[in-house]
């Protein structure tokens, strides 16, 4: 009964979305305000039904209703309740429902927070989102229904993939999807602007907070995914350049470009065409990511659901959405793009160059990800592209990006001069260079390659920090009052940028330190043995068998010590899950601000002495990688709460400027 309610709710949501995707759009072009007004109600109604559907699915998982195929395939009576809930979005069908649910949530949010927008704009934005949602709902109902029944009803479910039975995996998909789907708002704003021909600073101001919020979610989503891979896969790596990871990185890169490009469009009224293209590309890459993950055109350690038929449906959908919007772009963009002028040395130039670099970086990731597919399709053989390619092309693109980041944050709009820039940034440059040269030697590195790597990393990190500080002192120089007042007078959008840029520096320090100083050992240990890594000593004390709710585990006890002083015990596990018979590695990590001590059990060695292959790592500053991402997210959140959005929202609501529709009417009159 409950699954049928869920199914029915999905159908109702689909019907509402058909209405939302058609009438408001027609209404907006013909000026029928009743049709336009419909969009808010349908968005809210559909969100209600989508929540109901998701609720029904979660309920089916909680009560172990194995008559639902999706539940039977992804849950088990022994699975703890929290993972049963998470299993609702762990399967292919469930994850698509989650996707659509979030799309509904964003539409609903737009319908609530768009009171100050012209009616026509709201109608178009929601109309476009309605079309996208309709497509996905039909995809779900026709090819991946989460409520499909199975008969005869199995007595026991197959259990959730053990890899996904982890706290990180409860949060990772929703966050990632919030990000992916959130870019649909920026996309819808861009399409609405192309349809309506209105593309100005106000437009940019409306789309900015939505875009930044989506970007924040995506950042957190990627961060959790990376952290999960780090401790769950047991290899101590934090990024594998796996197709699925790349699929989330690509919209992030273009989304980052979009945020900056929107800033220019809002402040200076230029880059309009470019901004619109980025908005379309960001969401297109989110859709593409879903396609790559869900269709099985690529192999990946994450490959979950593979079904060419579904792939065909998503591909057709992609062709309609992306092809349609790019065609619209090609024909309508010339009408909106009247660019302002700026000189070669200016903040605009720096931001434009950064945009191009980010886009190129995304292009290289896309190329590397799809290269195996291209070769296969052209019958040139099967290959895989690994981390060496990505590292070789990605790092050289990041270095100029970081250099321009410092300049872009300090340079004046429209026209800056080199002597002026030098005057403001000379201390930053000097400090960064000194740090880059001195630090590797102070830290005791002498081999040329590792010195070069560390120097590059430190130069980039110090350049970001010092140039951000230079920009800060520049801003407060002319503010009256005490230092505290000077700080207070800065708008939150400035603090947002500052925090996010520092986050990038923190991230770079983390990556550099891990690359330069990590130590790992892969050893065979018997109880009583010790191994030392990076100044820490790990003593293998023994093994015990432990029984978990749906697995049996072999748990090792290790004593971690430094200079003979015991710090703490670590308990890595090797688990065998009942339903899959799949062995899983649970690494044990002693985590701290200055790095992690990491131990994971490999395989037992059959020598009758209880010995195991054991991997131990010392990863200095690895936590800074994620810390940097958290700072970037915080920066984004600070920027969203900037006073000007709140004030302008109120002002627009109080005294609406002439909406284009009225303006048109006036013109005609």
């Amino acid at each position, binding site marked *: 009964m409950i699954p049928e309610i869920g199914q029915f709710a999905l159908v109702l949501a689909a019907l509402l979305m058909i209405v939302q995707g058609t009438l408001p759009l027609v209404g907006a072009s013909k000026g029928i305000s009743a049709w336009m007004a419909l969009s808010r109600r349908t968005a809210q109604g559909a969100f209600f039904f989508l929540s109901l559907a998701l609720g029904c699915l979660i309920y089916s998982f909680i009560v172990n209703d194995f008559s639902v195929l999706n539940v*039977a*395939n992804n849950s088990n009576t022994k699975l703890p309740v929290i993972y049963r809930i998470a299993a609702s979005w762990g399967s292919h069908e469930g994850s698509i429902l989650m996707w659509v649910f979030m799309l509904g949530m964003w539409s609903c949010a737009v319908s609530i927070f768009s009171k100050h927008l012209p009616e026509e704009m709201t109608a178009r934005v929601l109309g476009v989102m309605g079309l996208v949602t309709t497509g996905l709902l039909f995809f779900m109902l026709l090819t991946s229904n989460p409520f499909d029944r199975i008969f005869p009803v*199995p007595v026991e479910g*197959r259990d959730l993939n053990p890899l996904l039975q982890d706290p990180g995996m409860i949060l990772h998909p929703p966050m990632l999807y919030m990000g992916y789907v959130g870019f649909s708002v920026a996309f819808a704003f861009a399409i609405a602007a192309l349809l309506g021909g209105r593309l100005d600073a106000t437009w940019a101001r409306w789309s900015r907070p939505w875009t930044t919020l989506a970007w924040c979610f995506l950042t957190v989503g990627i961060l959790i995914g990376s952290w999960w891979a780090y401790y769950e896969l047991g290899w101590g790596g934090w990024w594998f350049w796996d197709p699925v990871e790349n699929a989330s990185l690509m919209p992030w890169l273009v989304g980052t470009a979009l945020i900056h490009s929107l800033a220019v469009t809002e402040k200076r009224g230029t880059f309009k*065409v470019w901004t619109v*293209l980025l908005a*379309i*590309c960001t969401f*297109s890459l989110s859709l593409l990511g879903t*396609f790559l993950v869900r*269709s*099985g*055109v*690529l*192999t990946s350690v994450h490959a979950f659901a*593979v079904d*060419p038929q579904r*792939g*065909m449906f998503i*591909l057709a959908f*992609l*062709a309609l959405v*992306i*092809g349609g919007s*790019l*065609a619209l*772009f*090609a024909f309508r*963009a*010339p009408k909106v793009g009247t660019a302002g002028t700026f000189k070669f040395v200016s903040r605009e130039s720096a931001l434009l160059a950064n945009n191009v670099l980010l886009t190129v970086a995304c292009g290289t990731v896309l190329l590397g990800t*799809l290269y*195996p*597919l*291209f070769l*296969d*399709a052209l019958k040139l053989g*099967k290959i895989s592209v690994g981390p060496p390619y990505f590292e070789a092309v990605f790092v050289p693109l990041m270095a100029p990006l970081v250099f321009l980041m410092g300049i872009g944050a300090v340079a004046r709009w429209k026209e800056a001069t080199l002597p002026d820039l030098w005057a403001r940034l000379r201390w930053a440059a000097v400090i960064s260079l000194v740090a880059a040269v001195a630090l590797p030697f102070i830290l005791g590195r002498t081999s040329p390659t590792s010195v070069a790597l560390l120097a590059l990393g430190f130069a980039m990190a110090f350049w970001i920090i010092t140039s951000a500080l230079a920009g800060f002192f520049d801003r407060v120089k002319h503010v009256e009052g005490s230092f505290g007042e000077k700080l207070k007078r800065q708008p939150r959008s400035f603090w947002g940028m500052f925090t996010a840029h520092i986050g990038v520096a923190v991230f770079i320090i983390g990556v550099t330190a891990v690359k330069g100083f990590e130590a790992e050992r892969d050893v065979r240990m018997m109880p009583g043995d010790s191994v030392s890594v990076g100044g820490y000593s790990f003593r293998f004390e023994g093994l015990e068998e432990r029984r978990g709710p749906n697995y049996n585990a072999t748990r090792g006890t290790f004593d971690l010590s430094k200079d003979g002083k015991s710090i703490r015990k670590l308990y890595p596990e090797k688990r065998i899950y009942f*339903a899959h*018979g799949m062995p899983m590695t649970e690494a044990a990590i002693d985590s701290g601000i200055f790095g992690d001590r990491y131990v994971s059990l490999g395989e037992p060695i059959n020598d009758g002495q209880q010995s195991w292959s054991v991997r131990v790592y010392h990863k200095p500053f690895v936590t800074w990688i994620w810390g940097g991402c958290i700072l970037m997210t915080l920066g984004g959140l600070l920027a969203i709460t900037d006073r000007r959005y709140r004030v302008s929202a109120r002002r627009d609501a109080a005294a609406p400027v002439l909406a284009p529709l009225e303006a048109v009417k006036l013109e005609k009159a």
Partner: protein
Amino acid sequence: MKKKLLLLIPLVVFFVLAGFFVVGLGLNPREVPSPLIGKPAPTFALPDLNEPEKTVTSKDFLGQVWLFNVWASWCVSCRAEHPLLVAYAKTNEVAIVGLNYKDKPADGKAWLRQYGDPYTVSVIDADGRVGIDYGVYGVPETFLIDKQGIIRYKQIGPITEEAMRKTIIPMIKELKQQ
């Protein structure tokens, strides 16, 4: 005019990509040629599921073409391919040997009672040793083995109707004539 053409670039790029995806969907990135194809099937000597005191060995099937199907009662996908096997077994074309992989014999027998038994014989591989020899990494998997005991074809995942009709049955016919 020049500018208009520039604006068309993203669209063109996308359609080139989409073209590759259409082709890509038809390909299977997992279709890595199995190293076992063309090699002699690994030998085994395992207890019969229905009569555990009896040992069945791979040598028993020398001189005939046979299918070796890896299954388990806990495997949901096996349920999907099972009706195909049951239907095919009625034709008595070839021997179908089941490898009851990492399963409890009682569960396996109950499962066969419930869904039908297409197997000429099923053997017990409780600890999955033989599965390792055959490079099994997902259940179900099916191997087609010829009269000389050479593996000719491997199906990873459930046998689909299409694979049965277009690949497996024609191959069996051909191999039987050799």
